[in-house]
């Protein structure tokens, strides 16, 4: 953490202040939550959401690198989360005997989840990044569906004989004392819950570190250049596909890490959890938070996850209101006439507004 302050002192301009704000925001939020938890002021509903929030924040930060900075619409981020989650669960299950302490096992699981998701990202990126625009988006959607299908049909078990795999149908019998790590459509059951909010917060900080350090570097400039003008970027010697791949793989790795943390926060996890809707949800966090704006992404993720909970008293109407809020925000922030109306509504009272 000492290194961090030295980095900040080097730069003073606007972009870098935005970066500083992200870190400050995360740390303040963490302290505030910890104080609330320690003083017993945080309801069980909210405490149970703490780890998932950090997971979605990390996945959204990753997606923002892909969608905001690299400019490629990705409709399959949940697929990478799912790779990370089931990889993390398996790794944790395998290591349960040898690494008994929860935290180191969690960290190893997160790293493995990130690496496997990155490998998936790379393999998927080879075909995907040849395409452009909406075609690229649909292929990421397709890959998300394929990944979901794969996990719906994957059976992995561990016993004294070692690991057992099968696909489509469970064809192996485990020795007594053996454990099914993945059970097809039922997913993972009986997972040891080793995730916690502190590790989640650290993961958010790591994600911010990775993304910001990448953004403000040679690679980040190349990624943004390829987004703004492909032909000009090539003309100054930037290899487009390799550059886009870097953003795509980093994004996938962050989603994988987030997934691993998510998976180890629940005793059961079904592959259906990471479907198209989850990908869309993460995309909504990113777009609402602002493309390329990491601080915004963090805030919008937290708000949008908490919103349905805050609206819980409205019961059935809460998701309807959520939908209306989403549409209204999009209209107000993107339509000039509505934007001016909105601002005049709040003129004098608050600065900035939407």
């Amino acid at each position, binding site marked *: 953490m000492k290194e961090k302050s030295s980095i900040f002192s080097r730069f003073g301009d606007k972009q870098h202040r935005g970066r500083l704000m992200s870190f400050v925001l995360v740390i303040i939020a963490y302290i505030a939550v910890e104080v609330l938890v320690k003083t017993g002021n945080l309801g069980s509903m909210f405490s149970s959401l703490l780890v998932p929030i950090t997971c979605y924040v990390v996945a959204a930060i990753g997606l923002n690198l892909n969608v905001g900075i690299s400019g490629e619409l990705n409709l399959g981020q949940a697929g990478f989360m799912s790779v990370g989650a089931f990889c993390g669960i398996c790794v944790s299950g395998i290591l349960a005997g040898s690494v008994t302490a929860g935290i180191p096992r969690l960290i190893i699981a997160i790293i493995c989840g990130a690496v496997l998701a990155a490998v998936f990202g790379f393999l998927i990126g080879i075909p995907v990044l040849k395409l452009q625009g909406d075609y690229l988006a649909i292929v990421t959607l397709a890959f998300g569906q394929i990944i979901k299908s794969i996990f719906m049909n994957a059976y992995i078990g561990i016993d004294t004989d070692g690991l057992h795999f099968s696909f489509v149908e469970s064809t192996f019998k485990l020795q007594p004392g053996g454990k099914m790590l993945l059970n097809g459509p039922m997913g993972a059951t009986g997972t040891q819950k080793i995730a916690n909010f502190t590790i989640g917060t650290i993961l958010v900080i790591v994600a911010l570190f990775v993304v910001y350090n990448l953004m403000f570097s040679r690679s980040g400039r190349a990624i943004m*250049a390829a987004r703004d*003008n492909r*032909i000009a970027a*090539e003309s*100054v010697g930037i290899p487009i596909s390799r550059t886009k791949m*870097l953003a795509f793989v980093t994004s996938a790795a962050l989603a994988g890490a987030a997934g691993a943390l998510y998976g180890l926060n629940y005793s059961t996890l079904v592959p259906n959890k990471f479907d198209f809707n989850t990908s869309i949800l993460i995309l909504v966090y990113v777009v609402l938070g602002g493309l390329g704006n990491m601080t915004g992404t963090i805030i919008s993720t937290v708000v949008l996850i908490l919103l349905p909970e805050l609206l819980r008293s409205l019961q059935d109407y809460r998701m309807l209101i959520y939908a209306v809020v989403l549409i209204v925000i999009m209209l107000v922030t993107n339509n000039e006439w509505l934007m001016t109306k909105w601002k005049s509504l709040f003129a004098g009272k608050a600065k900035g507004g939407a």
Partner: protein
Amino acid sequence: MADNTDKSVKAPVLDVQELGIDFGGLTAVNDLNMQVYDGEIVGLIGPNGAGKTTVFNLLTKVYKPTRGKIYFDGKDTAGKSVVDINKAGIARTFQNIRLFGNLTVLDNVKTGFHNVIPYSPITAILRLPKYFSSEKEINEKAMDLLKIMELDKYADYKASNLPYGAQRRLEIARALATNPKLLLLDEPAAGMNPQETAELMDMIRFVRDHFKIAVLLIEHDMKLVMGICERITVLNYGMMLAQGTPEEIQSNPEVIKAYLGD
């Protein structure tokens, strides 16, 4: 084999031989022979639709030639990509300005150093010492280029917010950052007023002398072309119409006919 065997002692940095490209049935460029020598400023002119920008796109491999050869620095460029060509030492600007609109002016130039001062993404993410030394060097060199193009006061502006003339100069600065041996300028003075054009002429001369590079430029502003080009190639209907010094070109009846019509 029609060969321009008028090769001087020095080998040309760019040697185009019988270059041609067809789009479907349409021949856009045909049988073009052209040389550019080190330190030269060469003009490529011709009426609208003569195929000038197509030649640039062929030289930079945006289009693959149907016929002919392009030698750069003595090496055949066949099979190279746009990126390879830039790495080999050809940089260009675009007729319809192509900046990285959401990046700052300074960052636009910094992108040009992509292959000149490279370091890995890992170095960037971990902020290794090499990151700081490389970024410092990139920053200094980029600021130098901005000063040369008189853009330093705009360094923190978003590139898309620059005035038109400044955007054209920024494209040149970005191209120069890639450390080229040959600079291709596609209508650098388009949209500039006479005073800006005069300044631009000085800049192009300065850049050529300072970086010791060759410049090949497309331009409609005859004052600029005749003022700074040492040699001129005239294209018409994708074919070379004439080649020579500004004086020779100005008095060439074929050229006058092409420009003024029959």
